[in-house]
């Protein structure tokens, strides 16, 4: 067992490349579990954040501050009757949520949480990601068709037209970022997700700031297209609840419905990961090239621990602020335990940061680096997740024709223009 563990810790490449089957499998499991937990956390966060946007409290009953609400929801959804309409196409109805879910989760095989913190580094990483995430639409289309009902069908049609349209602008924006990876001495770019981040590292600039404002425009187009791609507000035509009741998943209930939700949130995290990787420096901490001194390295490595310490502090304050009635005793204890857990994690992270502050190949240093990478990556993705919630709280929904007009008549030409300008500027600069 220690051999298995150690076999990876010394490696600087992903387990997939090293042919390390044990760790590749471990990564798959870790990512599967991690994404599921992230979706649950996102579910709770969305409800709480949205509630606070809307001057309400959100879930408060199940666990302290509704912390256990996602678990209760998951349990409820699993126990619910799985209804398949008699007129539905049984097999397709059954398989549709799985298609979306599989597509959303397969994407994670190439997402680099760090230079070696990924299942595998594919040569065609970004191409693979775009391709597989475009398969997710199949689940939606097929679900809408199989329900044999009008609202789902319209939802499915909207969704497929929307996703196909926005993939074009999205792809062009991605290409302009990929083009930037080739602005190096050898003139060869890369499609590899890890390679793209490393290119940003080598060029010493996040691609969002490269050739300002070209990089930024490409990023903005991607950021808009990814909202449309994941069917989120204000582009949530496919499930517009005020128009199509629930769109493509109107006829779904229970576990199958929750699989759709799981796929949707997983897809949101996935596309955010692409944006982070392509434009925001992936796993890199801020200013890796400017602030290179070991002291800076140490200071930045304290961030994960400090973040958890902050969360623990918030949880402790929440415990203290709870009403003193006996009714709340269980919740108080629960929140205190949760805070203590967070504090313990914070302590552990700080200890690792201190122990691994020397940049050698010791186990502690490897651990510390891995934690840093994952921390910064997740932090950047979390910002996008917050944006998703923010959009939803702020904006009305676009109409379908307006959505298509923006996709084809605004975003596509701009993306094309940015791509050409990037190429021209790249040629001139090099």
């Amino acid at each position: 067992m220690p051999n298995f563990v150690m076999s990876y810790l010394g490696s600087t490449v992903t387990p997939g490349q090293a042919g390390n089957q044990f760790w590749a499998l471990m990564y798959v499991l870790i990512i599967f579990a991690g994404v599921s937990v992230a979706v649950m956390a996102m579910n709770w966060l969305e409800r709480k954040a949205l509630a606070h946007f809307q001057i309400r409290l959100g879930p408060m009953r199940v666990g302290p501050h509704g912390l256990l609400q996602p678990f209760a929801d998951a349990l409820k959804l699993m126990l619910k009757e799985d209804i398949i309409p008699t007129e539905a196409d049984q097999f397709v109805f059954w398989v549709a949520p799985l298609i979306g879910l599989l597509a959303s989760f397969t994407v994670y095989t190439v997402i680099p949480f760090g230079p070696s913190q990924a299942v595998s580094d594919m040569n065609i990483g970004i191409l693979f990601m775009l391709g597989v995430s475009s398969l997710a639409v199949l689940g939606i289309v097929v679900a809408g068709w199989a329900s044999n009902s009008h609202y789902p069908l319209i939802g499915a049609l909207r969704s497929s037209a929307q996703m196909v349209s926005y993939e074009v602008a999205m792809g062009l924006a991605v290409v302009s970022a990929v083009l930037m990876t080739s602005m190096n001495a050898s003139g060869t770019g890369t499609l590899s997700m890890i390679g793209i981040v490393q290119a940003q590292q080598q060029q010493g600039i996040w691609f969002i700031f490269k050739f300002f404002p070209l990089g930024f425009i490409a990023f903005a187009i991607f950021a808009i297209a990814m909202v449309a791609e994941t069917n989120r507000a204000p582009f949530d035509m496919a499930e517009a609840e005020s128009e199509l009741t629930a769109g493509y998943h109107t006829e779904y209930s229970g576990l199958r419905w929750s699989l759709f939700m799981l796929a949707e949130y997983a897809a949101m995290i996935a596309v955010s990961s692409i944006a982070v990787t392509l434009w925001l420096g992936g796993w890199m901490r801020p200013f890796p090239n400017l602030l290179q001194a070991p002291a800076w390295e140490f200071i930045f490595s304290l961030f994960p621990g400090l973040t958890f310490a902050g969360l623990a502090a918030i949880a402790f304050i929440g415990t203290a602020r709870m009403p003193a009635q006996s009714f709340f005793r269980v919740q108080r204890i629960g929140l205190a335990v949760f805070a203590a857990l967070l504090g313990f994690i914070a302590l552990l992270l700080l200890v690792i940061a201190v122990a691994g502050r020397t940049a050698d190949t010791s186990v502690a240093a490897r651990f510390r680096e891995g934690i840093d990478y994952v921390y910064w990556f997740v932090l950047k993705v979390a910002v996008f997740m917050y944006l998703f919630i923010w959009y939803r709280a702020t904006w009305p929904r676009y109409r379908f024709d307006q959505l298509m007009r923006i996709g084809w008549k605004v975003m596509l030409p701009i993306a094309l223009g940015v791509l050409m300008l990037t190429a021209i500027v790249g040629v001139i600069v090099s």
Partner: protein
Amino acid sequence: MSISEKGNPNALANAVSNLDLDTPEKPYLDSNELIINMGPQHPATHGVLRVILKLDGEKVLGTECVIGYLHRGVEKIAENRTYTMFNPYVDRMDYCAAVSNGLGYCEAVEKLMNVEAPARAQYIRVILTELNRIASHQLWLGTHALDIGAMTPLFYTFRDREEILKIFERYCGARLTTHAFRIGGCQYETYAGFEKDVTNFLSFFAPKIDEYEALLTTNRIWLERTKNVGVISAADAIALGVTGPVLRASGVKWDLRKAQPYANYSKFDFEIPIGENGDTYDRYLVRMEEMRQSMRIIEQAVGGIPEGPIMGKVPKVIKPPVGEIYHSIEAPKGELGYFIVSDGSTQPYRLRVRPPSFVNLQALDIMVRGLLIADVVAVIGTIDIVLGEVDR
């Protein structure tokens, strides 16, 4: 076969109508035409409205409204209750503007009996009615914005509507179906601090309207979703009997409070906001401005409540003379009229309610033809219907 066989599942399944639709021969999924049942259980039909949409893709070729799911026979009930007993029933029609309903009914009966409410009662009535108008518009704004996809305004408007409902509750003990007025005046004297509560509400609410407007008025998506959507011309609006903010947004400067003042509206200074294009956005602006104008009226009224009795000289048993009367007021949704035929007994011989929502809903069809499904939802919201009033 006809579509409005409510409750009959078979009829629901093969919905056809005067839209000239034929089901049996039509392929199940035709690329040209699609018939969709929107409602009666649908998030955006504001109750139990059922709209049958004939679609070409997403484009609406025609609609038919099927109503009556909430029919309670209010007019029949009226014939079997005394005038006083019927008073609470009117609150149940437009339950979002119960005070307005009560005002219309009480004034109609008073007119039939040729009595008048005392001045103090008139002031109280105007204050409560205008507060109710604001509350009704708030509810409209929240749900309308929710239909168009903006979730947040709903909670903001409900937060502020709560303050109005609190005043109602403190005044008459009920929040929604208030039964605030009686024939001949008011039942309750204002509670201590009523004026202060109302004034506080005014100063509390003024910035809140700006808050709503900050969220929506210049929001690009809101503009795209509402401008030139559901346009109805002034001529069409008049021909279809559309009243209230919908008519005013089409550019007709007509408000019963000004045109044929009732209660003591002639004493107050306020404007009638009108729109230009008759689209959803203009209706939105008109209603926003109406809230401000209502605040103006309340401000003037609350400062000038005279002392005096609150109940006019009406007999204990209300027996209007034989005759008939039509009296209408400007309810938040349009012209709310009561046509009462009296046979000299204690019960109305015939009582007809002219519901604004019912008549305005007729305009839905011409407003949405050629638009998309998403616009149908927006237009239903902008007409501001309450199914309790449509179906009675």
